[in-house]
């Protein structure tokens, strides 16, 4: 396999070349896990870096994410178990949604795609998500709950979602990450979130960090 070819295809947002690269690698018996870990995931890490450096913007990030998803789609049925990554680690589960009253989805969807590109299993709960849906997601196994809000008027509903998790007695089992245009670290602290991220690539970094603390506390 030439991981560089797949890597470049994803970074350049070229769906056809991504699929060709993945199919060629599979034809020469490269394990799906290896393609994921050595080409797709590093490519999306690079996309995140380019976004932070303001060399990539929303359009470039979207086409890269689409290319990555097309490669991932081919690999998914072949991954030994969808829940397993090499080394026997369980791939982390997350659920993301835009909070009640808010219908904005593009930022949240970018975070979901970037997280998938980082090896997470992510459930996209959509927009205008009532607090109880986040509780259900935890009951379905999510270890990270992501709350998104675009408006100063709807970010208040993030607290309602966190409160619902507390009331359901599941708050301590999981980590909550928040993001969206009007959000700040101070507001995240104020409503009792575990993490804040200002954009999709820092959300991935933060989610990884939170997962590692979660695993430590459970050991």
């Amino acid at each position, binding site marked *: 396999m030439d991981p560089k070819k797949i890597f470049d295809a994803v970074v350049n*947002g070229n769906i056809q070349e991504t699929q060709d690269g993945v199919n060629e690698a599979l034809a020469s018996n490269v394990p799906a896990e290896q393609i994921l870990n050595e080409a797709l995931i590093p490519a999306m890490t690079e996309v995140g870096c380019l976004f932070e450096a303001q060399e*990539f913007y929303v*359009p470039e990030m*979207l*086409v890269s994410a689409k290319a990555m998803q097309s490669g991932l789609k081919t690999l998914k049925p072949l991954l030994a178990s969808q829940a397993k990554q090499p080394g026997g680690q369980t791939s982390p589960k997350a659920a993301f949604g835009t909070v*009640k009253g808010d*219908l904005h989805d593009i*930022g949240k969807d970018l975070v979901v795609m970037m997280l998938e590109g980082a090896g997470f299993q992510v459930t996209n709960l959509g927009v205008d998500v009532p607090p109880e849906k986040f509780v259900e997601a935890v009951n379905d196994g999510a270890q990270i709950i992501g709350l998104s809000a675009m408006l100063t008027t709807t970010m208040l*509903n993030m607290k309602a979602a966190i409160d619902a998790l507390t009331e359901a007695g599941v708050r301590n089992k999981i980590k909550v990450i928040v993001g969206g245009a009007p959000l700040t670290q101070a507001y995240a602290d104020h409503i009792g979130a575990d993490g804040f991220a*200002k954009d999709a690539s820092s959300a991935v970094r933060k989610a990884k960090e939170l997962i590692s603390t979660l695993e430590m506390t459970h050991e």
Partner: protein
Amino acid sequence: MNSRERVLTALNHKEPDCVPYDMGGTVVTGIQAKAYSRLRTYLGLPEKEAVIIDILQQLAQVDDDVMDRLGVDFRNISPRSTASFKIELKVTPDGKYSYFHDEYQIGWRMPLDGGMYYDMFEHPLSGEITAEMVENYSLPDPLDPSRFDGLREAAIRVLEQEKRALVIGNISAGIFELYLWTRGFKDGYTDWAENPELAKKILRKYTDLQLAYWERMFEVMEGIPIDVVQMADDLAGQNSMLISPASYRRLLKPLHKEMFDYIHSKTDAKIFFHSCGAIRALIPDLIDVGVDILNPVQVSAANMDSAELKREFGKDICFWGGGVDTQNAFDESHTPDQVRADVRKRLEDFMPGGGFVFNTVHNIQGNVPPENIMAMWETLQEYGVYQK
């Protein structure tokens, strides 16, 4: 100095008697209906149901009594929908959303429980489309006479009786905004990177729509001095541009220049350009294409520090907005004292030398209490005065 003189002085980068004040001069410098009703009550003005002038943002019409009480220096005149079109509000079968389709066949919905705005859920040009489908997509008629009914008479009244500055609104959102709204955000951004020719074709269509509208509007207003023409295109997010500056220059800037050149050739009006977020990297380009006034001056976005913006661009562009940080100093979680402190800072930064119209960053949102609005206004009265 009457309102119009004050505004024109400021927009010509000179110091008038005091900083001009806007509330409701455009659909991006107004006040949300819930906040407006509370403000009326707080001011002891007769109770009346707010007239919604912008259904998407649930903006209230600012009534004459409020304009007089607060000394609003602007009057907006905007085209109407065509007579052939009427918004029909419906409720989704699950009872959760109010929704409608607009003149462009864009679907909008608002949660009935706690919703404050309508947001898009359907885009007429989404999915797999061809250039032919773009050509066949039918736009509303920009020249329908019913759009212009009574506007000339209203403008004469503003000029002769009110002496307020006259702001003329656009027929639609900006061309890039309309492109994303009709194509859908994901498809629109994807085309921007993958299929710019299709994007250009759609943008051309909306540029022609707006040019036809402005041509007719200038005919309707012939002989009446228009002070401000309101244009827009949101191009940035909280932390950075949404599209690369290079792609702006390649795909969008030539069309902005074409429209603004046309407007400048037809009128002495200043071009007001609304663009939210972190757009500092583009300000030189906007000056280059003939933008005279920048709005909303989102001082909370990345690299949008008010003092720096004034220092770097204040000679070449006016700032209309940025008067109070809507995201971090204005809503119900902030005290009137916090509002006063923020307003004082913004006045210090923006008002020297003129070139500044006071307005909040974007519309006053539904969660801003009247105490904070009046703390803002009182601070403006106290400190927004130029020393003679």
